[in-house]
């Protein structure tokens, strides 16, 4: 971090006689800092701050573009409507369920992948690449690819099940199986990122710790639970919270795989917001839904920030 003495090493060059434009090109440190932060601040103001204010305001309005009527103040009406909207509750519950299943799921799979990838392979690039490809693949591509995997007649999943002697499943014809297919896809897509983070952590654990443990007669499992896991805790926690926040925003994968079906049994809150906004053009109600989701994820972010602070 910068200290005062270091930065003052630079002599201010605003001697008399310099032209005004030199002063502009070489302003005081504070002005310069402000100037440098200005573009970022402007962008954030336009894309985040102003929209958030606007969002909250719209959520108190009756504004449906299909009615042709101008916006009218509606107080808490949109929120009241939401409380007895079964689809709101269903999509919120689905979102929470997806989070509760895929976050630990991605962690477990990611941990396994990381431990496997940490083996002394002769060639490292195939392993590295196979962790990077799922990460770089667009979520919507992953949704389409796995929709094809789980196709009831021509999908590879049912083919493999058949070869193993099980009866194939009509995945997207049942809420439970469709949900399972979506969760498996999300876990596949997100576990490789977990693995990369954990792998980076693994490689910082000093060898001496394990050697000492071996001298003490600790078995491999004990070494894993008493050395590896505790030392990985910090990086895992950060990755977990981050994954939680993105899981709450799940949209692409169910949208491309099932469009929320059968019925609304695999629709998420993000999809419901999108539908109310883009398909129904009910901006008031869509905003109220978004405020709820905003509050949810900001709550998790607060925890996240606290963890990062604690970590130093």
């Amino acid at each position, binding site marked *: 971090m910068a200290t005062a003495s270091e930065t003052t090493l630079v002599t201010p060059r605003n001697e008399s006689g310099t032209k005004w434009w030199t002063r502009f090109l070489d302003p005081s440190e504070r002005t310069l800092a402000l100037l440098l932060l200005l573009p970022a601040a402007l962008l954030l103001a336009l894309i985040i701050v102003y929209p958030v204010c606007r969002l909250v305001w719209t959520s108190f309005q009756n504004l449906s573009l299909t009615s*042709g009527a101008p916006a009218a103040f509606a107080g808490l009406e949109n929120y009241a409507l939401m409380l007895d909207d079964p689809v709101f509750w269903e999509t919120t519950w689905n979102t929470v369920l997806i989070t509760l299943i895929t976050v630990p799921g991605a962690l477990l799979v990611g941990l396994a992948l990381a431990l496997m990838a940490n083996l002394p392979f002769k060639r490292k690039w195939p392993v590295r690449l196979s962790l990077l490809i799922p990460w770089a693949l667009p979520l919507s591509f992953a949704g389409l690819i796995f929709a094809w995997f789980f196709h009831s007649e021509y999908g590879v999943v049912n083919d493999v099940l058949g070869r193993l002697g099980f009866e194939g499943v009509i995945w997207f014809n049942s*809420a439970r199986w469709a949900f399972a297919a979506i969760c498996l896809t999300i876990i596949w897509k997100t576990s490789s990122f977990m693995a990369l983070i954990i792998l980076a952590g693994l490689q910082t654990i000093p060898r001496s710790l394990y050697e000492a443990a071996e001298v003490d007669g600790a078995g491999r499992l004990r070494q894993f639970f008493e050395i590896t896991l505790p030392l990985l805790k910090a990086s895992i926690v950060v990755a977990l919270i981050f994954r939680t926040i993105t899981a709450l925003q799940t949209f692409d994968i169910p949208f491309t795989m099932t*469009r*929320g*079906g*059968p019925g609304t049994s695999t629709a998420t809150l993000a999809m419901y917001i999108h539908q109310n906004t883009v*398909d129904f053009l009910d901006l008031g109600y869509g905003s109220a839904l978004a405020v709820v989701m905003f509050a949810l994820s900001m709550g998790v972010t607060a925890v996240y920030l606290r963890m990062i602070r604690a970590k130093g």
Partner: protein
Amino acid sequence: MMSKKTMKLLLAGAALTLTASAAMAQTNLRVFVSSQHRPDVWRKAFDMYEAKNPNVKVTIETGGNTSEAQAQYLNTVMTAKDSSLDVMILDVIRPAQYAAAGWTVPFNDVLGADADSYMKRYLPAYAEANTVDGKVVALPAFADAMFLYYRKDLLEKHGIQPPQTWDELAVAAKKVTESEKDPNLQGLSFQGKAIEGAVCTFLLPYWSMGRQLVSNGKLSFDKEAAVKSLKLWKDFVDQGVAKKNIAEVATDDTRKEFQAGNVLFAVNWSYAWGQFQGAESAVKDKVGVVKLPAVQGGQPASCLGGWEWGVSAYSNNKTEAQKFVQYLSSPETSEFMAINAALLPQFPDVYTDADVTKAVPWFANARPVVETAKARPVTPRYNEVSDIIRTTVNAVLAGQSTPEDGATQMEGRLRRVLR
């Protein structure tokens, strides 16, 4: 060197030429056409208009492959108050929505006092679908309805008449599939996927019981009829008349499976006929088409389809655009599209036109079906109504909820929207 004076003169001359050419300038009309309705043939119809009106140039725009995707595209254009589109083709369920949102220009000013008689020329259902609060908000492009397609050869073989009721259909389907012993042969295929077609799936038996979903803008939901309707379809699945994953079946899946010879009865729109009789079809000349069955003791009902031409409220060429739409919605264009694109006419007389009956003989049977087809509910919040119905139908068919629960949920959600 030119003198200053000559220069000035030249400039003035140039300016004059410019204004003159501006007066003669072409009107560019940008027309949105749905990609599934033969934009290539529409293009020919546009060319004929351009030939007669040299100052008008028409460009086609398409977007999205499904009615829903197209609605999404037009939603964005209209909410953005974008003037880039002048004319757009709209699914029959949308003119009321667009009018309520103020996205289309009424034709009353152009039609004047003749509006009533002008609209009377069309099939009544289309005059109605395009008139909102006494205003003509769009003009019909072509008609459509749902039909029952059946395997003529198989029914003849087993000595069965085309069914009049859904119960008869179930009996016939069971009889044929049981004795044919073909594991790939399905008794009935219809639309169970959560698409617009599933709205019609629900409404067909519901209407057949004489019930309406919306009357005078108010919800008139008959729960008992709704349960019966959902149960009718679910029973088809449970009895093995329809296949187990019918909740995954969309309009064109029905068409493909019937065309491959794997379906005895199919509920589908008019476009399927041309494909069934096409060279690649396994059922060519083995197909019959009749009006859809009724529920026991009810009237047969079909779902009204078809598309309409609207003029954008944000167009800069409204007058030219409306003139153009009047041409597109004329009996002449209708006849041209019937012969060349097999689109059903929106005028009763065109069905009996000699050239049309020669090109598409089956249109003669189609007319009574179109005439009795019912329109889906007219409401500005149709998108929400549609979503509620189709997701419920889909959930019931997937065994996700019972017909009773489905109807209860449907009613609750519809009341919220049409409050």
